């Protein structure tokens, strides 16, 4: 393949992955999946009932892997058995995945809320009607983009894995990155906006999450709005970089051209990891120097 075409495909994959990462994180924030979920689950038990969606499907990696595998399998069946066009097959596959994701989200919210009867946590049906379509929308975007990445890998870059398996692997990856990158923004900051910034989570504050919004009661869509400012885009960049950089080294230094170039690609990969580690370290030191440790006596200026 022409190197220029390879780079173009790679750029397209990176762009699709960036969108997938951002929508994955915002989707998990609407339903408080993954790490922030433990406090959402704990809140009613500490006598803080709330109107925040409790989407406990599983961790983010398995639930995104389910979406991507369902979409990938449906799309490859539509392309294989019914010779449907690629774009249409991927769109229908993503639609089926989003629908199934909606049923999982619904059973999780209803079940978790019903199991907290003794703490007086009601089930709000308008929450199901308002939140589930939003999550299905984000799930559709995530699955569609993951399928675009996987399809380009199998058809253009000639990856030996079948579409469903690649989609499954990328689904786990996007879930893992969303869980580790984006959730910090929601779980550590948004849920505990009522305590001083940087004070950590005191055991006495456990479960005492912010339940009231600027106007009315806070819900999952408010949280998604907050996370769309930083957590979602940061997740998108992280996943986009993962897809782009991991493809870039083997596109530039194609191992199929010889063993030496293959080893060179591994060296370049290690160099990228080293650069990222040093960069992250510098960022952390800079942030610590700039904002310093939490001081109890200091007045809050904000």
């Amino acid at each position, binding site marked *: 393949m022409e190197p220029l075409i390879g780079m173009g495909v790679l750029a397209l994959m990176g762009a699709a992955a960036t969108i997938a990462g951002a929508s994955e994180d915002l989707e998990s924030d609407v339903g408080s999946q993954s790490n922030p979920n*433990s406090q959402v*689950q*704990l809140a009613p*038990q500490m*006598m*803080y*009932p*709330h*109107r925040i969606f409790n989407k*406990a*499907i*599983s*961790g983010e990696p*398995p*639930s995104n*892997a*389910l979406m991507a*595998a*369902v979409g*990938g*399998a*449906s799309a*490859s*069946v539509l392309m*294989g*058995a*019914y010779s449907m066009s690629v774009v249409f097959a991927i769109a229908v596959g993503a639609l*089926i995945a989003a629908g*199934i994701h909606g*049923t*999982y989200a619904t*059973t*999780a919210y*209803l*079940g*978790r809320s*019903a*199991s*907290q*009867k*003794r*703490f*007086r*946590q*009601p*089930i*709000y*049906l*308008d929450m199901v009607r308002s939140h589930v379509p939003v999550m299905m929308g984000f799930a559709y975007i995530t699955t569609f983009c993951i399928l675009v990445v996987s399809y380009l890998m199998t058809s253009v870059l000639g990856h030996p*894995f*079948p*579409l*469903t*398996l690649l*989609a*499954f*692997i990328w689904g786990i990856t996007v879930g893992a990155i969303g869980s580790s990158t984006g959730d910090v923004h929601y779980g550590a900051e948004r849920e505990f906006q009522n305590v001083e910034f940087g004070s950590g989570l005191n055991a006495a504050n*456990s479960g005492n999450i912010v*339940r009231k919004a600027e106007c009315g*009661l806070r819900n999952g869509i408010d949280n998604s709005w907050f996370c769309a400012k930083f957590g979602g885009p940061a997740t998108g960049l992280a996943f986009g970089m993962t897809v782009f950089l991991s493809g870039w080294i083997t596109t530039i230094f194609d191992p199929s051209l010889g063993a030496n170039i293959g080893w060179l690609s591994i060296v370049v990969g290690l160099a990228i990891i080293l650069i990222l580690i040093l960069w992250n370290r510098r960022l952390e030191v800079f942030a610590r120097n700039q904002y310093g440790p939490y001081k109890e006596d200091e007045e809050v200026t904000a």
Partner: protein
Amino acid sequence: MSAGGSGGGAAQAIPQNKLIAFGAAGGLIAIYLSYFMVQFAGPAFSFIGALGAICAIVWGAAAVRRVASYGLGTGVPSIGMLALGMGVVATMFGLAVGGIAGPIVAFVTAMVIGLVIGALANRIIGMGIPIMEQSMTEIAGAGTLAIVGLSTAMTGTFMFDVVLTEVISTGYIALIFIAGGIAILHPFNANLGPDEKQDRTLSTAFEKGAIAMIMAGIVSAVSAGASAAPTIVIGLAIWYVSFSQYNKYVVRDAYDVVGTGLLPKEEEESE
């Protein structure tokens, strides 16, 4: 934190032994029935394999519920993945060496693997959960039957050469792995809390098993040995019935089901 269950054994209306019989016998009988019916009466009967998978998924969810009630919390999803992980290894081995006895060989292999892992968890890692060995054995067996059942629904047979070319090398094994695994782990995870009820959890397992069945039906469209329409239609019917039943249990168990509203009154005043 009490987020991970009550810390003791789970209350159960249906005894576990009945669920073991339902999952193991139901699963194996359905898988063999599906195989022979497809052989003698045509590919339309491949859906019976998925019914066997649903039996196994309900059994697996009940076993996860029992072991996870000892306060596993975030370990619930891991145990579901572990079930299918053990299941994939046992299925590959069993179907490859077993021939017509493949599902039984796979099932027995899985239970041995599960027993060893359960013993390791209790004796070496020292988790100290009294039913760990039994539960891991059950979960591994259920995971295996779910995989064999869904493979049979997708291809109409459990013969290794067909499963290898139509399920494993096409990548659909990834779908079986994740759809079956989440169907086993999600029911307890979705209903986790102090007021969890066995019947509600198991109705979720039926519903999620039906989703796996529908997906197996979609995939079977590419296979000559299985037909898609019966699997999808029957799967949709089971999904509808079990979701309605689940909804009834939710309304029965919940503190209150309201269209919309503010937070409960008592709590507002105490603030």
